[in-house]
C-alpha cells in the first residue's frame, strides 16, 4: 500500500514525522489487507490445495493422472493500485480505510480470478475437456455433456467433492432457469451420472490408496 505524496518538493518540511509509528500503522494495514485477501481466495481455492513457496518463481509437478508428464507452472504477480486524495485525509474521512482496502482487494481478486480461469481453460484445452455450445447458449444437454466429461475428486476425508459452476450473474440465472424447466426424467438422468461418477471417483481413490506399501497388514 502506498500513499506517498508526489508532486511535492523533496525534501520538504514535515513536523513531527513519527516515522516508526507510521511504519507500524502501515504494516498493520497491510497485514489486515493480506488476511482479508486470503479469506477471499479461500472461498475459491481451499486452504488444503494452496501451497506456499519460499524460493523460486517456477514449479514442476507430476501427478498420477498426468501419465508421467510434467506440469509446469509459474508465479504471476497480481497488483492493484489506488489513489487516495489528500483532501480525504485532511477531512479525516475514517471510512476511507475500509473503502480503499475494499478497492484493493477487489482489484487483486479480479486479477486472481482472471489467472484462475486461464489455468482451468489451459488445462481443459490440453485434455480435450471442452464442451462447445456452438454459439447456441446454455442447454440442458450441454450440462449433461459437461458432467460426463468431468472426473469427480475425493477429498482427504474420503468424501467425493462435487464440481462447482462459476458463471456471471446472467448466465447463472439462465442455467438455473434452464435446469429447473427440465422434468423428472432429466433429474433422474443427472443423478445417475453423479452416482456413477462418484463411484468411479471412489474406485480411483481406492486404487490410489492401494499403491501405498501395506507392511504388516497383509
Amino acid at each position: 500500500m502506498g500513499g506517498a505524496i508526489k508532486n511535492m518538493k523533496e525534501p520538504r518540511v514535515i513536523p513531527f514525522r513519527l516515522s516508526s509509528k507510521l511504519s507500524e500503522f502501515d504494516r498493520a494495514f497491510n497485514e489486515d489487507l493480506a488476511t482479508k485477501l486470503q479469506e477471499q481466495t479461500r472461498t475459491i481455492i481451499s486452504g488444503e490445495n494452496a501451497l506456499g513457496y519460499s524460493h523460486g518463481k517456477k514449479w514442476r509437478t507430476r501427478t498420477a493422472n498426468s501419465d508421467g508428464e510434467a506440469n509446469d507452472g509459474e508465479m504471476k504477480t497480481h497488483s492493484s493500485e489506488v489513489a487516495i486524495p489528500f483532501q480525504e485525509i485532511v477531512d479525516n474521512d475514517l471510512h476511507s480505510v475500509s473503502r480503499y482496502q475494499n478497492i484493493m482487494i477487489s482489484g487483486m481478486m479480479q486479477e486472481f480470478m482472471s489467472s484462475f480461469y486461464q489455468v482451468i481453460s489451459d488445462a481443459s484445452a490440453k485434455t480435450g475437456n471442452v464442451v462447445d455450445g456452438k454459439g447456441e447458449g446454455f442447454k440442458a444437454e450441454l450440462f449433461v455433456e459437461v458432467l460426463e466429461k468431468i472426473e469427480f475428486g475425493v477429498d482427504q476425508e474420503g468424501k467425493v467433492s462435487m464440481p462447482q459452476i462459476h458463471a456471471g450473474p446472467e448466465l447463472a440465472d439462465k442455467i438455473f432457469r434452464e435446469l429447473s424447466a427440465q422434468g423428472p426424467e432429466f433429474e433422474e438422468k443427472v443423478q445417475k451420472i453423479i452416482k456413477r461418477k462418484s463411484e468411479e471417483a471412489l474406485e480411483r481413490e481406492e486404487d490410489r490408496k492401494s499403491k501405498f506399501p501395506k507392511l504388516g497388514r497383509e
Partner: protein
Amino acid sequence: MRVLVAIGCDLYDSDELSALGGAENDAVAMFDLLVSNGGELYDKTHSVILSSPTVAEAKEVLTRAIFDAGDEMDFSLFFAGHGCVKDGAYFLCIKDTNVDRLSVSAICISDLFMWLNEAKVRDTNIVIDACQSGGIAHDVTAFLKPGEIGHFGSPSVSILAASAGDQAAREINGQGVATAAILKCLSGEVIVQKDRPSLNLIEIGSSVSELMGSDNQQSPVCWGLNLFGRSLFSNNPRFVGSKTPAIGLPDGLCRSANVEPIIREHALKVWELYLSSSRYFDSRKFLNLIQSLLKDLPPESTAAPVIVDALATTFRPLLADSNDPFEEVELLGASIASLLPYSKDNDVVINLMNSMAEQLLQAICSGSQLVLDAIEEEKFSLLSDRTLLADLYYLPIRILKILGWVGAGQYISNILGSGHKKDLLVRQKLVQAILDNYQCSIVAVSDEQTCSFVVFTSMAESMNLSDEAELIFGLLCNTFYNFNGKISSADLSGSDAYKFIKARAEGDGSIPDGLISKPTEFLSALMIVSEKLDLSDVVDGIIEHFDYTSANLFVPDSYSDFAEINIENGLNFTFRIGDGVWCVKDLSDTWKSARTKIAGDPSIDIPAIQIAAICASFINPDRTPWFILD
C-alpha cells in the same frame, strides 16, 4: 595534557597524487595559532608539526603522541593533504602513499580510532582539510559496531571535515579554503561566540559552515559527541567578561574520577542514538537515555548540567539539517525536562534551564516560520511523506502538537520577557493557516493531545487568538461528542492506532477497551478550559452524552519528578460523569483540590521549573501541566 599533531602534506611520490601548494602552510598556520601563540592550552613539548612526512614518520609521531603523553590526555589532529574513501574506510594520504596499497601505505582513520580507544584518550578533536573528508563518517559507523572492533571508548569526539564524502577540498592562493575559514574563527576575525573563554570544534564548525554557506562545491561536515562537557579546541580571542561564564558551568570537560567510568559505560548507547538521530530524532529515547545516565551518577555529583549541556550542544548541529524543524525544539525540550530532578536549590541548573529556554524559544519561532512557509507553499504539507491513511490518526495529533508548542513559545516568551512582535505575528499566521487548511483535522483522537490543547488555549488570549481558541475548542468538543467521549490512550503503538481508527470508523462499540483512555484527562481539560473560555454551556449541552465516562487530573507531589517515565508520587483526581458531576460547575471542588495540591509544591513557582514541566508533558504526553490553567 592537550596535544596537537599538525600534518601538512604537499609532496607526493605517487603520480596519482598531485603535489599541493598550501597543505604545509595550513599546518604551520594552525600550529602557530594553537600552540606557538596559543598560550597554555596545548602542551608545547609534546605537540608536533610535520611537513610532508613519510607514512612511517607520521605513524611514529601519532602513536608516540597518543600513547606516551600519560593519563588525562586530550588529543587534537590537524591534517591537510590528500585523502580518500576506499571500501568504506577513510585514508589520509602521506608522501609515500601508494593508492593501490592504501591500507599499508596511508593512515586509516579506523586505525587512529583504535589507538585513541586503547590509550583511553578522553577528548579528541580531528580537523581534516582533504578531499572526501566527510567520508570519515564511514569509519565511525563501522567502529561503533560492538563485536566487530569493540566498544568505542572515547565519549568525547569532535570532527570537522573540510568537504562532504563525495567532494574535493580546494586550495586558493596557497591555502585550503576550509582551513582559511577555520583560522578566521580561531583568530577572532570571525566571532564564534563571546560568552565562554574557549571554543569547541562543533561551534567552530557551525561558523565555518556559515562562512562557506554560499560555496556549492565544498560543504564542510562537522559532528561529534561530547559526554564530558563542552570540549576545548582553542582559546576564544573574542571572549569578554569574567573567567566564569554567566551560567556557572565549568568551561571544558568534567574531570571527576567518579563520574568518568559512568559516562564511559553509557557512551556506546549515546553514540548509537546520536548516529540514528541524523535520520530520525526520537526525543523520548533521548530523554530516557539522559535520565538513565544521570541516575547512575553519585548523589554528590554536580556533573548533571555539564552532561546535559554537552549533549544538547552536540546533538543540535546534527538536527540542523532535519526536515522536521521541531526535532530541535524537542531536543531542547527534552534537555530542559531532564534537569528537573536536579533543579532544587541549584542556581547552575536553573541558569542552564533558562539559557536553554531562550534557545528553545528561538527554535520554536524558527520552526513555526518554516512550517508556516511550508503550508503557504503547499497546503497539504502537514501530511506525511510516507503513508497517507496513518494520518487519519496522526495528523490531528501533529496539528495539536504544533499548536501546543506555539502556545509554549508564547508562555516562555512571557516568562523571559523576550517577545518580539514578529514572532507573535508568525504564531498568529500559523494558527490561522492551520484553521484555513486543516479545520476538519482538528479532531479529538488521543489523550496525548491534552497537554497541547491545554497549553495552547491557556496562552490564546496572550497571543490575541481568543476567537481561534474558541473555534479549536468547539471542533475538539464536537468530535469528542461525535465519538461518544471515547479517545485513545496516550502513546498507542502504530498497529494499535490502526485498530483504533478502523474500529472508530465502524462505530465506537467495536473499539477494544484496552485502546480507550480510561480515565481520560482530555475530558477534564475540555471542562476546565470551557470555563476559562466562558463556554461551559457548550459542554453542559452535551455532557449527558458522556454519562459513565471516567475522567482524571493527575498532579505530582513534586514537579521535580514530572519528567520521569512513571511518576510514583502524586495524586489522581478521578471523577465520573453522572456520579457527582452532571455539569461543568460540579467539577469546581475537584479542580480546587487539584489547584491546592499544585500550590503545595513551591518549586512550581519558579519559572524555569514551569517551562521544564511543560516540556516534560510534550515529550511524555501522558501527563498534563494543569498549573498553566491556574
